[in-house]
């Protein structure tokens, strides 16, 4: 039984990380109606920039990666980079696509994915880099002693960070004027423009927010598995989370992430051996699909009424 709980908790915690990436999707979708496929690429870009800047700081000022000064410096530069990226995306992509069908915008973000992946590797190279953010990946001692369970301290911290981020974002979306403007933009670009919502600024804000979420996700994932191209694919892990939780719901992303993370690990451990393993590449999708057949709008998605 202890083993079951270990797997479950490990699953839940890694699900928290999926949720973090999914959150970036939800954020942009909720606030501008754009389904941003490039979120994974942004995670990669952010993590790679963070590490790359850290290396440069070491070179120029002798700040070792992992030290507080280096962390702060890299963080600031990466944040600035994400802001610049958001502005460029707004200027060169979104502005040309105002009021286009959402599917068109979606396909544009697939193009953006390729662009950002190429750009990130062009600037920083494609080697796998280590990333040290000062949290060690060791089991929590008292849990090991009292319940004989292996739970990583790192995972717990990551989950806590994700929780804080969610709380901040929820408050931002629900209770600020900008948050309301964001939701107006999501409903209808043109209508929002015509009542005086500054569409361009809103878009930049949204993409900066998504960039910040990508940075947090990138730091945690990167510290876990190293900063590598595969980070870009974390987006694919986040997609079933999204369809399970509903595209427009922040709590949905969290709950969806937990469900997907837990069931993926449990399936791999308990079902995997019967079919040859490696089922975590598709199991979340099939599960999300099966779920959608019962409830097409996802767990917390808005029910959509079709009208002619």
């Amino acid at each position, binding site marked *: 039984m202890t083993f079951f709980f270990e797997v479950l908790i490990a699953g839940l915690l890694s699900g928290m990380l999926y949720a973090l990436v999914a959150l970036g999707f939800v954020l942009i979708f909720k606030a501008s109606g754009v389904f941003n496929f490039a979120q994974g690429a942004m995670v990669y870009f952010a993590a790679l920039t963070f590490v790359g800047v850290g290396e440069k700081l070491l070179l120029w000022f002798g700040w070792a990666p992992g030290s507080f000064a280096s962390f702060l410096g890299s963080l600031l530069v990466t944040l600035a980079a994400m802001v610049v990226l958001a502005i460029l995306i707004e200027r060169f992509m979104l502005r040309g696509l105002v009021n*286009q069908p959402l599917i068109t915008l979606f396909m544009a973000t697939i193009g953006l994915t390729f662009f950002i992946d190429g750009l990130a590797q062009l600037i920083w190279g494609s080697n796998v880099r280590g990333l040290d953010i000062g949290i060690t990946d060791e089991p929590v001692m008292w849990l090991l002693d009292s319940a004989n369970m292996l739970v990583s301290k790192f995972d717990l911290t990551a989950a806590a960070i994700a929780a804080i981020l969610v709380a901040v974002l929820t408050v931002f979306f629900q209770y600020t004027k900008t948050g309301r403007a964001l939701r107006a933009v999501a409903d209808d670009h043109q209508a929002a423009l015509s009542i005086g919502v500054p569409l361009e600024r809103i878009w930049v804000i949204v993409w900066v927010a998504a960039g910040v979420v990508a940075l947090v996700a990138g730091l945690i994932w990167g510290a876990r598995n190293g900063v590598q191209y595969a980070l870009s694919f974390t987006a694919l892990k986040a997609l079933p989370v999204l369809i399970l939780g509903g595209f427009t719901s922040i709590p949905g992303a969290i709950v969806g992430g937990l469900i997907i993370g837990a069931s993926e690990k449990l399936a791999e451990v308990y079902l995997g051996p019967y079919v040859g393993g490696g089922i975590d590449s598709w199991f979340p999708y099939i599960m999300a699909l099966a779920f959608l057949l019962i409830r097409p709008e996802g767990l917390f998605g808005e029910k959509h009424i079709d009208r002619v």
Partner: protein
Amino acid sequence: MIYREAGQFKASYEADMQIFPIRQDRIAIAAIVLFAFVGVPLLASEYWFQAIITPALIFSLAALGLNILTGYAGQLSLGAAGFMAVGAFATYNFMLRIDGMPFLVAMVLGGVCAALVGIVFGLPSLRIKGFYLAVATLAAQFFILWVLVKFPWFSNYSASGVITAQEIAILGWTVDEPVEKYLLTLAVVTVLALAAKNMARTHTGRAWMAVRDMDVAAEVIGIPLMKTKLQAFAISSFYCGVAGALYAYTYLGTVEPEAFNLDLSFKILFMIIIGGVGTVLGSFLGAAFITLLPIFLNQLFHALFGDSLPPAFASNVELMIFGGLIIFFLIVEPHGLARLWQIGKEKLRIWPFPH
């Protein structure tokens, strides 16, 4: 002047309903097909057949398949390469396990297998649509590849999971030269492209387009949604399956499941975006564009920088150019290259007057 249909009267329903009702179109198509069958084999070199024309044709077919589903029926799919994999591996197994199986029959059966798998993965489209469906089709992409890798039966227990295409023989004609492979590919693509062109303007195609434009309205006017959507999935997957079989047999020769990864799916999606969503011509233009672009860039980099360039640089710039072009096309010409041809045709029709 040249492209003017004045004076071409239709005296019968048959004449009015033919695929290309304008004489100039008929002549142009016939000339292009004739040139492809006779002129190209005389002109092109072996390298062109192996590296450019044959793959471009195969991708055209795959793009055609995706265009049927995404362009005509409006069901966004990110799993095209998965269905190609089904076609390739099914064809391989039909050839392997049934003695004396003719290649063409195996290829059609491979396409049918892909169609069946397509129907299964199309089932969610009855309940969900748009982005949800796009994500759901990723399930097809990952699941199919996983099955092909995990169950060695599909690759005949080869240690690396790679299948090697058997010899293609059609009624005693052995297809092994690049030119012959090209001709075979061309024949298959021509037949299927004409079929697609025809389907798009019949009852079937109109039903697809109605579902694409607004499925609720389509249902209200009596179009059976379930049948139409699943039909689109089946036919689209059939096209992709046949393309996959050709990919394995006339292009690569040996192929592993990983060749049909998500990147290939995206590539095919890009082809229809750049070529033109919902046009048959666009599938060809897009496939040609995406196939030629890397070669062109390669030459360009070579001419600009010589050999001093690190290969990673070139491939990253290529990624960026790919991505940038997609965005550029979506902004500037969302209807793709095919739209340019349409504009050209309209201009020709009123030439020499500007309006």
